[in-house]
Each structure stands twice: as structure tokens, then as C-alpha cells.
């Protein structure tokens, strides 16, 4: 969004405004460069040929798609990608459904233990995940969940729930619930009132929460590397550190970078299309929670 300054039209003021714009423009460029350099570097590495990997240039001198071909012809990466997508989507769906139920209750209903629930989810949000790795490792081995999808989905749901509950209850508090009553007065059934009035108002919040939760699950590394041992459930972040080069004398720089680019694409798309929602979600949950 660009704010157009409409001030007095005197020349001096106009010059001043332009000067301010230029200064802000320079600041903006600094931010853009800051945020993009590591991403561009990974992108550049992923397009470099095997020989050029060690030329230390920021940009590839010769472009190649070989790295992408390599990762998409090995089972290793494709399996990991399927695991990543599957696990993140299932965990997101469950966390958002459970979170929506709990957040609705927190935002709208009066019941004993509400403060406790809010407190517990705050505690879990701060919980050191590594503290769970040892017991979960042992428990999952005994329950047969080790190195399976549910073995990762469960901790993901747990750590996503506080995020979901906070963000959603902040959104739900903003919904004008009187509209529901108004709709009923106009003769809508409760189901209609929910479907036509409340659901459309709540949907953006639920959707935003789903994005945040997905990013969280997609990002995880600690659980992914501790609670998996084979391709059966290893997600991409964990699989990256097991990549090997084409020969033992060749570092897997190119293939790791190509895989890194592939799993960054969904993040870039979310950010591009839903920037405003993500910002709203992160800030509302954090401060008003």
C-alpha cells in the first residue's frame, strides 16, 4: 500500500515530500536487500553447475537445471516432500479444528477452567521442545509411533494449538456476534445464521490461522530429526542433512540448495498473497491474546 501525501501544493512542501519519499525509499531498499540476500544466494547455488559451486561468485556464471533434475529423480527427496506436505496438512487441519472449537469457547462462553486453559496454552507456547524429545523418543518407540506420520503429527498439533487458540480467539472477539441474533430475528434458523452470517465472518481468521500453523509445521526440524529414522516419515528439513553428493568427492551443495528452494516456494506464495492476513494474525494473537 502506498500512501500518497496530499499536502499543500507549494513547491517547497512538494520538494520536502519528495525528499522524504526518497529517504523512505532508500530505507525500504535496505530492508528488501536484508530480507532477500540469503534467499537469492540459495537460489543462485541451486542453478550453479557442479563445477561452479566452488567459484564463490554470488551469481552463477552458467545456469543449469541439473540440480532440480537430480532431486526429482531420486526417491529420497520425493518421499521427503510427500512426508512434509502430508504431515503438515494433516497436523494443520486437526490443530485448526480443535483450536477453533476451543477458541470459540474462550471467546464466547463462560465456563470453569477457562483461565486454566489459556494459561496452559501459554505455557506450552513457551515450552522447550527439546525437553519433550527424550520422553517422546522412548514413548513413541514403545507405542510403535516412532518413525511414522502420527509420531510427528501429534507433537506438531500440540505445539500448534496454543498458536491456533490465541490467534483464533483474538479474531473471534472481533466478530460482531449481534449480527447472529439479528439474523435469527429476521427468521433465520440457527443453522442458517451460522452458515450465512457467522461462518463468512470467521473464515478469514480460521484461514489465517491455518497458514500460520502450516508454516510452523513445515518449519520444524528438531522433532523431524529426532523422531524419525528412515524415509518413511522423514520430512524435507530433516532429509536435507542426509543428502549426499553424486560421488564421495562431491559436496551435495547444489542438490541441497535446489531442495531448499522447492520447500521455500510455498512460503513465498503465502507471503505474497496473504501478507496482510499473516501480519494481522501474528500481531493480534500476540498482543491482545
Amino acid at each position, binding site marked *: 500500500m*502506498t500512501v500518497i*501525501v496530499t499536502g499543500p501544493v507549494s513547491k517547497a512542501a512538494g520538494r520536502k515530500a519528495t525528499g522524504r519519499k526518497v529517504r*523512505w*525509499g532508500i530505507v*525500504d531498499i535496505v*530492508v528488501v536487500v536484508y*530480507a*532477500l540476500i*540469503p534467499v537469492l544466494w540459495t537460489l543462485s*547455488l541451486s542453478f550453479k553447475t557442479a563445477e561452479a*559451486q566452488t567459484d564463490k561468485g554470488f551469481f552463477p556464471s552458467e545456469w543449469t537445471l541439473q540440480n532440480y533434475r537430480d532431486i526429482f529423480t531420486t526417491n529420497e527427496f520425493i518421499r521427503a516432500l510427500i512426508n512434509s506436505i502430508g504431515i503438515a496438512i494433516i497436523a494443520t487441519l486437526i490443530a485448526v479444528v*480443535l483450536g477453533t*472449537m*476451543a477458541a470459540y*469457547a*474462550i471467546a*464466547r*462462553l*463462560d*465456563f*470453569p477452567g477457562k*483461565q486454566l*486453559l*489459556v494459561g*496452559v*496454552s*501459554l505455557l506450552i*507456547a*513457551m515450552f*522447550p*521442545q*527439546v*525437553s*519433550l524429545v*527424550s*520422553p*517422546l523418543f522412548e514413548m513413541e518407540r514403545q507405542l510403535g509411533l516412532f518413525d511414522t506420520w502420527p509420531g510427528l503429527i*501429534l507433537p506438531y*498439533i*500440540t505445539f500448534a*494449538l496454543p498458536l491456533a487458540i490465541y490467534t483464533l480467539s483474538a479474531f473471534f*472477539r472481533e466478530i460482531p456476534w449481534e449480527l447472529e441474533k439479528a439474523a435469527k430475528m429476521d427468521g433465520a*434458523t*440457527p*443453522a442458517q445464521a*451460522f452458515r450465512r452470517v457467522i461462518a463468512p465472518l470467521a473464515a478469514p481468521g480460521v484461514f489465517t490461522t491455518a497458514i500460520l500453523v502450516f*508454516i510452523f509445521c513445515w518449519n520444524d526440524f528438531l522433532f523431524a530429526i*529426532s523422531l524419525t529414522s528412515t524415509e518413511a516419515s522423514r520430512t524435507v*528439513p530433516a532429509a536435507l*542433512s542426509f543428502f549426499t553428493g553424486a560421488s564421495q568427492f562431491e*559436496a551435495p551443495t547444489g542438490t541441497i540448495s535446489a531442495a531448499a528452494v522447492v*520447500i*521455500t516456494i510455498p*512460503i513465498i506464495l503465502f*507471503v505474497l498473497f496473504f501478507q496482510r492476513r499473516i*501480519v494481522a494474525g*501474528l*500481531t493480534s494473537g*500476540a*498482543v491482545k491474546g
Partner: protein
Amino acid sequence: MSQTVDSGPSEVVAAPPPKRGKPILSEGKKAERRLGLLLCAPAAIVMVAVTAWPIIYSVWLSLQRYDLRFPDQREFVFLDNYIAVLSDGYWWTAFGITTLLTVVSVVIELVLGMLLALVMHRTIVGRGLVRTVSLIPYGIVTVVAAFSWFYAWNTDTGYLTDLLGAQAPLTQQIPSLLIIILAEVWKTTPFMALLLMAGLALVPDDLLKAASMDGASGWQRFTKVIIPMMKPAILVALLFRTLDAFRIFDNIFVLTKGANDTSSVSMQTYNNLIRGLNLGIGSTMSVLIFIAVAIIAFIFIKLFGASAPGNDPGGKR
């Protein structure tokens, strides 16, 4: 209009408007309490089952000698594991490194995050662009960013290798720590900035204008008006980031694997558990980290006072 009164959602919305302060519960009130508990139960059960129970179990494991390589030697040893860990130099080195990384990166993030928040909040050109690109570090997978930094500083591939003036920076302790801090700060500053921006949005423009009229300079407005009004937001951001930084793992794992005394407590736990398969020691470290985090959280919440999130009695507006 067809009459369709059934299905789950209708029950949800059918709850009567709540009333406060009635000693005797009406039918509707009871139904509301029941519904509230019912809706929260699944989330609460999952959270407790996957955190509270394992932590208790972890305390139990930490009191045993339990090495998966020698399972028959499993026995109850009381606090021996704790004595072993707490008298171990590696643990304290890792603890010191973790504390150092946490303090330094959170301080840098606070300063940079505040600057970024001001830019995102005030810029008059390209606000959408700035906000969008700032979200990239937040959203990107930490391991991906860590690999980018690894290859940037790696002697074979890196465009930054010679910058710190050290031969092979990732094989020496101090340069490695600096790079870990850089990676950590790059990734989390935008998150910090977003939390701060939420606080910044709560500072009324009128107040700033009034201060400006009274002759306050930009810096004075910042320190005397903006900062005090943002205090709750700053504390929330600091709390979240401090606890998050204390569990640093991904960046270290990729950048140094904890070599040359750059290991964090999380890294140590991972090494003992997954590499060493020593459940007893791993669990002991888990419990110690849990206690450390609880202490940090307690200190912060003391500082928070009434502004702690979760103290909001509301829900009904």
C-alpha cells in the same frame, strides 16, 4: 425456506447469551458451561497428553541409568544422572554458550526489530512491499536459511568467507558463534518487529502530535512517549524471543554441528539421546532445560505484572 435445524453448528450457536454473577445456575448457564468444557476438551487433552505426561515420564527416566546400547544395565540411580551432568564441563560450556547466544541475539533483535517496526509502521512508500519481504525470513524454513548461511561462510563455496578475517570461520569458535548469531538474528528480527509493530499501532497519533507541539524532538518522542506506551508489547516480544532463542538448535546443527564448543543445551541433549542413545542422560538434560526455561519465564512474568497475556479476564465484549 426449508426447515433445517440439525447438525453440529446449530448447537454451537444455540448457546444463550451468557450472564454474569448469578449464584444459582440456570439451565442455560449450565448448558453453556457444559458446551464450553466440551469444546475445549479435545485441545486440552491433546496438549496435556503430549506435554505434561512426557515431562513426568522424563523425570522418571532421568532417575535411571538407561542406555539403549546396554539395555540390561537399566537400573534406578536416583540423582546420579543429575550429578553426572551438572559436574560435566561440556554441559556448563553448552549452558554458557546458549545463554550468551540468547542474550546477544535477543538484544540485537530488539534494536533491529524496533527499527524494522518503525519502518513498517511509518514508511510512506512501499509499505506493502516492506511488510511482504519482511515476512520471508519469518516464514522460511530455519534449516534452509541455515544452509544458505553455511554455504555463504564455508571456505569451499562461500562469497563471505574472507569477511571475518578468519581462516575457515566455521571451524573456529568465535567466528562460528558470530555466524550463528547472524543467522538467528536474520531469521527472527521480522517476528520481533511484527510483535513490536502491534504495540506501535496502539500509540495514538494525537499524543505524538501533542508532544511534537510541545517541542519534543523525534528522539524525545521515541523515548518518552512511544517506548513507555509500548512497554507491554516489548515485554511480550522479549519473553517469546528469549525462550525461543534459548532452545536454539536448527542453526547450530547445520552451521557447526556443535563443534569447537559451539554446542547449545538442545544440541547436547540431541547428541546424548540420538547419537549416544543414552536415555537417562538425555532425559536429565531435558528436565534441566525445562527447569531453566521455567525460571526464565517466571522472571519475565514477575516483570510483566498485570500486562501478562492470559491475564485478560475478557472474552466477552
